[in-house]
């Protein structure tokens, strides 16, 4: 006689959870949500700056993931990458539809919805460390490079829109993007090696 022990869903990898999700297992999906909701919401809020809109974007992204189940495109990366990409694309759509203002402040200083300090699970600590690494790397960039990267990635602006907003030649904007990303790639890679 074989006894089936209850599966601890939280011990399963994302890919295993998504197999269960494909079979309609809502508890598995709940675990996926718990795992990635903070990153998804943080990105959405960082991009739109409005809580209600950020919530809508995250809700749509997760519902889309639920519907796709194991059909999400694994070749394009992890579940986390998929969710973040879905959020990013939706937020860009919103920003461009709304005619994003290039001059809006994309820095997150003063935003009062940071993760409360009382949340101190291992996962949260890890997330904070990762956030510190990324913010540190961004902070080390020359301001002109950081600005164009933030306006593009978090602000959803094209290089032409950024060039117009900052009164720069388009080539200069793209050049700064490349320099900034190259430095970030180097410093984040270095930070990861140190963390290991």
């Amino acid at each position, binding site marked *: 006689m074989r006894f089936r022990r209850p599966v601890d869903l939280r011990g399963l990898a994302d890919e295993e959870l998504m197999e269960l999700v494909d079979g309609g297992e809502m508890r598995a999906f709940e675990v996926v949500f718990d795992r990635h909701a903070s*990153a998804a919401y943080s990105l959405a809020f960082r991009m739109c700056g409005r809580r209600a809109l950020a919530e809508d974007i995250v809700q749509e992204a997760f519902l889309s993931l639920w519907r796709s189940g194991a059909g999400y495109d694994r070749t394009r990366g992890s579940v986390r990458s998929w969710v973040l990409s879905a959020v990013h694309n939706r937020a860009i759509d919103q920003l461009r539809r709304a005619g994003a203002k290039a001059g809006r402040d994309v820095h997150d200083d003063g935003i009062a919805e940071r993760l409360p300090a009382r949340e101190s699970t291992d996962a949260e600590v890890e997330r904070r460390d990762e956030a510190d690494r990324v913010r540190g790397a961004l902070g080390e960039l020359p301001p002109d490079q950081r600005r164009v990267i933030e306006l593009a990635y978090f602000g959803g602006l094209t290089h032409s829109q950024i060039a117009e907003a900052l009164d720069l030649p388009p080539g200069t904007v793209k050049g700064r993007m490349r320099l900034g990303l190259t430095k970030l790639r180097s410093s984040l890679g270095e930070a990861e090696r140190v963390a290991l």
Partner: protein
Amino acid sequence: MSAANGHHSGDDVAAYALGALEPDEAEAFRQHLADCPECREELAGFEQVTEALPAGAVYAVPKGLKRRVMQDVRANPKQSTARPPELAGPLLRGPLLVWSGALAAVLVAVVVAVALTSGGSSATKVIQASAGNAELRVSEGRGDLVVHRLPQLRPGRIYEMWVQSGSAAPVPTGTLFGVNSSGAASVGVPGSLNGVSAVMVTNEPAGGSPAPTTTPLIVARL
């Protein structure tokens, strides 16, 4: 944006990784990527950075968001057939369109025309092909198809536009296109729309096909 020999500069690679190229530039760059291992390698490095960027902002998930998402989940029980995630909207659960037995086995995500409203000038009609996925803008007998959130194409694939008259087989328009990093594109429908009953889009091998080889992702009915 390109050098004379057609090779894109690294500046374009960076802008593409950030989703900052204009739609037509992004499309040209995507096509270039299929044949340029150098750019693909540089892009992979930049994408590692852009995937890390969201981690720099950490905000608390609002109370109630999980409840809303799980309510959605309960209200949308699973269907057995997996579909492209970006096209899985509520309106896509309409009748499935299958042209032939050969197409029946293909994963299906068919969009149905759901609304006909006026928009823009009085001479322009906007036909919503699905929930935010496509609009066919018709003006003075000519059409422009504007798509949103279509899945990114794999190397060697392209979106192809077709027109259909009545129940006749779809005819290729010769229009092949890709989408930008957010899955958007805007393409004109060649020729007049007189007598056309539907404009469709399928995913085809690069270079296009003389007849659809996959079930349409978009069907905008006139």
